[in-house]
């Protein structure tokens, strides 16, 4: 906790999590912002591609130049409706945008065009799985809004505005369509609160991927989570005062932020202090939240209906067409895949927990057995992703390539150990598994004459071991196999080598 103690003004007293949960009942609320993957922005034709030169994807509209007017992106509305339907929400027959007024340099117009009291989707609910337990999450609303630009603070030690000597703004992100999904208060989680929060966000990520409406890359900010949390003495009591922790941007952080806020608020309440209603910032590096704006300092956003846009009124036919286009719901899909693959509940949970459901599905589709697909993604590839600090689906290998590696194994052309080297080669960008095998010369030697000679050399070189085997101690064959494999640089089928040794010594 040294890192925390250096933040002396912000460091907070904490009550151990278990103790906190023995005294208080947590109530959660999650607000998730999702960047849609539409080709163009919410209100203009500018591209939404991530990572381009700053301010190259802008126009009079998203720069908020005088005279410019917004025109709503129909594809974004479709995505919003599909998300709403997938969350079992009611879709508004008519709804409007509003202006949220506040001054900030990364807001080109100094107001954000956002839905306010007329969201496009309301009153839904979803069932998620938390460590094998089903859990119902109510959905309050899903609404559309535009993203802001991005400030870059230059010259400070921390990259934060404090201490910076100047700031730059990139408006490429300004106007990218966002959907904000807000849960109803989540009660009854008890000590599962951190797990519920993580499971919900993970579930939502999977849902959005399945809908194809967003890239949901948390590290690129295309899915951002605000965690609201309050404590109360017992489940029957009125809600306590909540804190709102902003920009919690990984699944692990969602879990940690909930855990931290439970401990922090419990310590305050237990010592007779009150929880301040405020915005808090999550610090990924130190794992703490620090105070932001309090409610007393909160802005009055002066919302009013956006006069530059007309109301959105999706027809019943349109909504039903979109409903019919929805993919299978995650729970149904999961149950179907589990049955198809013959996985146990535990195995299935591992796959889902690793975020590998889609990857395994695609690997199986490409010809691998479910067990093999699971094995590669959950062991070798999970380890590599973890080492590289990236998500599994960000590794530079496709499910088709993984299936190709497995088919090399099945054909006896590489063994498991060589297969791992093939994966290395593919990940290093050396080409397809086939190309890597050839370029690296990894194929196992199947020339019986060559193998047989190597086996004989091993027997001659280790007469005492050979004698033991002749005497019936078959287990000793391992030493000879090792010697052969060494001579063959690992490019031999160990089972065949064993057979040859036993044939020659019996």
């Amino acid at each position, binding site marked *: 906790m040294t890192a925390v103690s250096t933040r002396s003004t912000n460091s907070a007293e904490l009550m151990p999590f278990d103790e906190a949960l023995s005294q208080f009942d947590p109530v959660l609320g999650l607000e998730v912002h999702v960047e849609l993957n539409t080709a163009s922005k919410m209100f203009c034709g500018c591209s939404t591609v991530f990572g381009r030169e700053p301010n190259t994807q802008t126009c009079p509209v998203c720069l908020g*130049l*005088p005279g410019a*007017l917004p025109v709503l992106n129909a594809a974004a509305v479709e995505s919003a409706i599909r998300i709403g339907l997938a969350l079992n929400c009611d879709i508004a027959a008519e709804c409007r945008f509003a202006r949220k007024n506040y001054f900030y340099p990364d807001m080109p117009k100094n107001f954000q065009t956002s839905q306010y009291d007329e969201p496009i989707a309301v009153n839904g609910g979803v069932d998620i799985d938390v460590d094998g337990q089903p859990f119902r999450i109510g959905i309050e609303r899903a609404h559309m809004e535009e993203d802001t630009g991005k400030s870059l603070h230059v010259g400070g030690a921390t990259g934060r505005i404090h201490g910076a000597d100047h700031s730059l703004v990139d408006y490429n992100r300004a106007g990218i369509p966002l959907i904000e999904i807000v849960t109803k208060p989540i009660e009854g989680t008890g000590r599962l609160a951190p797990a519920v929060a993580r499971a919900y966000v993970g579930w939502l990520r999977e849902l959005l991927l399945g809908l194809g409406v967003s890239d949901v890359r948390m590290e690129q900010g295309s899915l951002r989570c605000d965690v609201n949390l309050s404590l109360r003495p017992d489940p029957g009591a009125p809600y306590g005062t909540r804190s709102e922790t902003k920009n919690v941007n990984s699944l692990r952080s969602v879990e940690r932020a909930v855990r931290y806020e439970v401990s922090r608020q419990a310590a305050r309440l237990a010592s007779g202090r009150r929880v301040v209603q405020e915005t808090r910032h999550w610090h990924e590096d130190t794992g703490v939240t620090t105070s932001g704006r309090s409610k007393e300092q909160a802005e009055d956003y002066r919302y009013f209906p956006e006069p530059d846009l007309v109301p959105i009124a999706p027809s019943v036919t349109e909504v039903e067409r979109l409903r019919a286009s929805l993919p299978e719901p995650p729970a149904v899909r999961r149950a179907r895949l589990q049955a198809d693959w013959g996985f146990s509940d535990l195995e299935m949970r591992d796959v889902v927990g690793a975020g590998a459901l889609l990857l395994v599905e695609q690997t199986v589709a490409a010809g691998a057995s479910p067990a093999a697909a699971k094995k590669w993604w959950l062991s070798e590839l999970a380890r590599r992703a973890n080492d590289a600090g990236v998500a599994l689906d960000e590794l530079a290998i496709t499910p088709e390539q993984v299936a190709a590696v497995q088919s090399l194994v099945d054909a006896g052309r590489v063994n498991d150990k060589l297969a791992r080297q093939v994966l290395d080669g593919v990940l290093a960008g050396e080409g397809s598994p086939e190309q890597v095998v050839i370029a690296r010369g990894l194929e196992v030697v199947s020339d019986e004459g060559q193998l047989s000679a190597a086996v004989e050399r091993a027997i001659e070189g280790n007469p005492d071991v050979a004698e033991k085997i002749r005497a019936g101690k078959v287990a000793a064959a391992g030493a000879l196999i090792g010697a052969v494999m060494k001579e063959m640089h690992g490019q031999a089928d160990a089972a065949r080598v064993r057979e040859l040794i036993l044939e020659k010594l019996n």
Partner: protein
Amino acid sequence: MSDLTRMSAVALAAALRGGNVSSVEVTRAHLDRIQAIDPAVHAFLHVDVDGALEQAAAADERRAAGEEGALLGVPIAVKDILVTRGMPTTCGSKILHGWVPPYDATIVTSLRAAGMPLLGKTNMDEFAMGSSTEHSAYGPTRNPWDLDRIPGGSGGGSSAAVTAFEAPLAIGTDTGGSIRQPGAVTGTVGVKPTYGGVSRYGLVALASSLDQAGPVARTVLDAALLHDVIAGHDLMDSTSIDVQWPSMAAAAQVGDIDGLRVGVVKELGGEGYQRGVRDRFGEAVRLLVDAGADVVEVSCPHFEYALAAYYLILPSEASSNLAKFDAMRYGLRVLPDDVAAPSAEQVMAATREAGFGDEVKRRIILGTFALSSGYYDAYYGQAQKVRTLISRDFATAFEQVDVLISPTAPTTAFKIGEKLDDPLAMYLNDIATIPANLAGVPGLSLPSGLADEDGLPTGVQILAPALEDARLYRVGAALEAMLHERWGGPLLDSAPELEAAA
């Protein structure tokens, strides 16, 4: 003075079509006129001599290549609230001093496509807030009828430019009367089209739900020709109406009122309206009756709340629309005094303090207050309800009559400085024009004569149901013809000659 500047747009178009004159000659004549008299009138904030002549030459080439076009080669002035690529756009404000927009408003694109050379940008009350053009940060425009008087506002530059024969046509914008009231006090014609009839893309917003650009001209037919050029659906403006508009020029050429049902709005007249304004209005009504119109009095009971509702809705929207002027991306940037390393917020505050005039600040404060949590329902919310009631008044009235008429403005042009310290008195100038903006219906103002007591122009306003803009031109042209017959020619023939600057 050149004869070319005295000609109507229709006459100029005919001369151009007949090959009697070139667009370069017509444009140069107007530029010369601007150079000669604008130092006295100050209708223009920016004159684009080179650009206008280039565009004129291009128009002549297009004609030589066989192109026709109702107004091809006829020059025009544009209110400085419409963005023009490569030409400064200030909205009459210091805060946009030096800003050159990188894009054209859709209207400007339409004018260029029609081959109309842009003479320059006309003066206006800062961000169109005012009824006198005295609130321009670049000094007032003067009324060509009497240089000590105001030319109306906010579009006083456009009305003065056509009145002083500096331009045959101009574009104005009308949020609460800023085309029609200047038309009335300068003896010219001004039209506010149906809301959504003309694109707002590139019109720097004052109040988005009220703003509408339209023609400023010396005759009803000239206005109609210009209306036909600028009207139409625009994909860049979500509030633009997707309809096929009938030809306004054709409607103006019909000019028929026989059997027309005309409603005189009871609430827009009488007390508070200057004697001469009432007299001329009464005469116009009698002309209509004589010509076979069926004239009745119609009551619009909620119009008395229009001004109050307007002064809540307009400032509310304006406070948000004007938030973008923050020194971060364009326009003026002022650093605060005595701050070594000012924050962005401090620079915004210092710039807005220095860059906005008093009237703009007054309305931003009003609007910010009206939208604030705890006051929203009582102010903005109530005002929107009044707006609905006013729309219903119009709907009810238009069940009984085809058009409504009233005086355009309660008084003739007042003296510069006379009402500058009395915002409420200033706001009352728009009392007759505001209801049309709140309901989105179209309105046309044309000259009704000169007030006996001061010899200054008065205006009559015709209002029609939404989408029925053509009706305004049909009725307006008929009334104009009768008035011209009575006067023995256009009213502007009796305007004083302006002396060219030395």
